[in-house]
């Protein structure tokens, strides 16, 4: 009996550890989702800016707000900047997607493992009850 109870305790500890890991993973996923959302919004905004910049005349004055000052910028330069920014954000989004997928896979496998441990605990308990 004592051996089985220790095994059971071990299993339960194992289960606890795994549950902790899982909750950590879930937190990570949630954080990633938030970051992704932020980037998506930024991407949308940048695209909007790019569209408007494309519609401007060549001689239009463009300013960038840097701190409290409006700094005059060349239209072509602003355009290039925005494009670069869009590129960067898209790359970041891609990276986030990959990591998100990875995390979700991990989460899934963790869940499976937890389920298995739970089943083992249950079978243990059932065996105990029988005994």
């Amino acid at each position: 009996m004592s051996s089985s109870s220790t095994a059971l305790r071990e299993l339960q500890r194992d289960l606890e550890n795994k549950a902790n890991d899982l909750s950590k993973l879930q937190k990570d996923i949630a954080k990633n989702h938030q970051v992704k959302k932020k980037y998506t919004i930024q991407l949308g905004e940048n695209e909007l800016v790019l569209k408007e910049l494309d519609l401007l005349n060549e001689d239009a004055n463009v300013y960038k707000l840097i701190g409290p000052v409006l700094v005059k910028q060349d239209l072509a330069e602003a355009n290039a900047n925005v494009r670069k920014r869009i590129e960067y954000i898209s790359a970041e989004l891609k990276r986030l997607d990959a990591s998100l997928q990875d995390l979700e896979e991990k989460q899934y496998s963790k869940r499976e493992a937890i389920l298995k441990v739970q089943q083992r605990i249950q079978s243990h308990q059932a065996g105990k009850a029988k005994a």
Partner: protein
Amino acid sequence: MGKTEMKRTVTSLSSMFPTEEAQKAAKRVEETLLDKQNEMNQLRGFIADNTSLINLVQKLPDELHHDIMVPFGKAAFLPGRLIHTNEFLVLLGESYYAERTAKQAAEILKRRGKSLESKVDSLKAVMQDLKAEASFFDSTASEAAEGLVEIREEYEDESSTQRESQSGRNKMVIDYFSEDEDYKSGETFSFLDPLEQDSPSFTEADNMVGASEDEEYARIMSRLEELEKEELAAESCGEDDEDQDNNPAESDGDDEEQTKAVFDRKKNKGYSSLDHDQRYSESRKPLQQSKGKDPMKEEMSNNYHHQDLINQLACTGLTVEPVTKGKMSHSGNMRQDTKMLNPSITASAPSEKKVKFAVEHSSRNEKSVQTSNSGFDGSKAFTGSIVEHTENMEKNLAGQSTTSSQLSGSQPWKPVSRFKMQRKYIQSSDRHFNSFKTCFFGPTQNPKNKSINDQLSPLSTPSNFPKSTSAKPQTLTLMPAL
């Protein structure tokens, strides 16, 4: 044809979807819906701001200068004058500003307004989905609470080629029916569920819908003809002949079924008033089917039909209170969704549905009781779920829903039997359209259901269709074994 092997499973809805769970899910959906509503309000606020800003920008250059009060700090204002009324520094986003004239600024603002509107539209669509989902959850919860039972039976697919040949026949049958006065409420069901016709006895006995398909077209045709002949002969003799014919076909058919059929018949007589309306609806529907091979059309007609039924039922004030929801089973979509409830299903008469028929066309003929959403297997051909509150209720329902099959057994209505035969064929041809909605709608039925179903149905068809090819051969057949 002669195979009458069928599998039936009966499950109570509440066992699959506990009431509390469904209610919880409904609550969650309601919450998200609320969030979306807030978002929508915010967007609308933006749009209002934008339009007022456009007006202002367009008005400013009308004057050379404006006398205004300039805000100075939080609490103070200074008198000031606005000059350069046609020069605007417009924030494009990402802290980029551009110098624009009033006209150009207004254009930018208008473009922004457009993008806002498109956002509102997409949000609206999302909200509609959520609403459908919520109503579905509600209905599921109430159904589970009422002890709804789902019955599934295996169903065999027929080749689609039959359809064309039969479309012509259907029409004829329909006409015939419209003239026939004896035609009972049960027949309406048969129209709704082509599957039922194959296994009329099932429906009676178990309140289940049977689905059968013939694999060989030629065989079917020949049989059909034979049956028709028999029917003709039977006309003079009465129903008895038909009974014999049909019953043998269902080798598996339970004795219970027959007895029930008789019972149903009795009940049917009470419904004579209903018959007229129902007949109309039926006649309409078959016509549509014959014309349109489109699954969409058929579905539409089905819905139509349902509503008719509902109305009639409500008018007559049946004792049964057959309030039912039509559930669409989007077998393909539903299955894959991890979520139990899809917005697609939208039966909304929550309190009163007692009988729910969910018919699914799918490769397999299994009937199993499931809630329409999550549990649905695409493979399950046909599902009928009936709520059995009390014995009386059940009987009544059975009488209404399954009269057609019952009639064949003991009643002298030849037309019915014929019709059934025809229906069977139609059915096979119709397999494209997977989800049949066959239900009684209660008087409280939600009008939204219809529209939702219509929308949903097309979605469901494609997913189901491919599955049919892998259909299991198990089938129920009404036709007598030759």
